[in-house]
């Protein structure tokens, strides 16, 4: 059987393709807006790890804390991954997604190192608590807006790519 399609029907089919793809971007944007709980949990874990690791622990206790921290972070990642309903195709990601990921690591690391130096320099009491609080706050202040910034252009980018292909 051969189907014949006129231009109007083909145009309608091209528009029909857009609708489910919009639902995908709706879900991605909704997830980026609603992941505050995951951010707070990650920040709380970071705070605990930094506060505990600043207690002049013996070597084995530090490594035990680090192992527990990494294990809990891994478990958290698995739990949130199971809750995810979709994963955006790799071709649809923009450079912003990767930039946000690396910038998040850099910002957190710089906050940890700088707050540690500052606490040492000023010889503040409860140094590890201050360092943990500053680092967790820097992480929280960065991650929410950065995630929203990363996903904000995905829909437009997909629309532009479709349009450019159509023009060609």
């Amino acid at each position: 059987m051969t189907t014949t399609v006129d231009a109007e029907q083909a145009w309608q089919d091209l528009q029909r393709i857009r609708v489910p793809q919009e639902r995908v971007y709706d879900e991605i944007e909704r997830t980026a807006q609603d992941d505050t709980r995951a951010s707070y949990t990650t920040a709380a874990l970071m705070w605990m790890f930094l506060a505990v690791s600043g207690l002049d622990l013996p070597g084995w206790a530090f490594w035990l804390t680090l192992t527990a921290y990494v294990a809990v972070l891994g478990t958290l990642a698995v739990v949130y991954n199971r809750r995810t309903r979709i994963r955006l195709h790799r071709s649809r990601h923009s450079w912003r997604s990767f930039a946000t990921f690396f910038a998040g690591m850099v910002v957190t690391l710089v906050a940890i190192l700088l707050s540690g130096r500052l606490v040492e320099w000023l010889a503040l009491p409860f140094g590890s608590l201050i360092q943990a609080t500053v680092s967790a706050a820097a992480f929280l202040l960065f991650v929410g807006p950065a995630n929203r910034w990363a996903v904000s252009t995905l829909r437009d980018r997909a629309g532009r790519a479709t349009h450019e292909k159509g023009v060609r």
Partner: protein
Amino acid sequence: MSTPSGFDELIHPSTRLSVVALLAATEWADFPFIRDSLSLSDSALSKQLHTLEEAGYLEIRKEGGGRKRRTKVRLTSRGRTAFEGHVAALRAIVEGAGPAAAAGQAPEAADATAATTQQRQHHAKAGR
């Protein structure tokens, strides 16, 4: 009118086209997400997915057990290639009809068409 190469008869029906279009934007999608996004019933979606799976266009993977059982659907590289070919064929048909057909519709008109199409899909459910 003859159809250009790349036009895929299997993807052409509206429900299957919507399913494949949604999956093309994802690495994988959950069965309930596809069902809710396209306003289909479980059985209608299941039927379309199995047709596409038999053609090797997608993979259906079941994870977990009991109440936590999840069904993930992923477009295969064959399915992705077929979808891209089909979209290219549709564009060729529109462009072949002259600029009036392609450019004659303003973006607002295009959005309206998309909305109408969505409404139609809601009513038609898994008509095909």
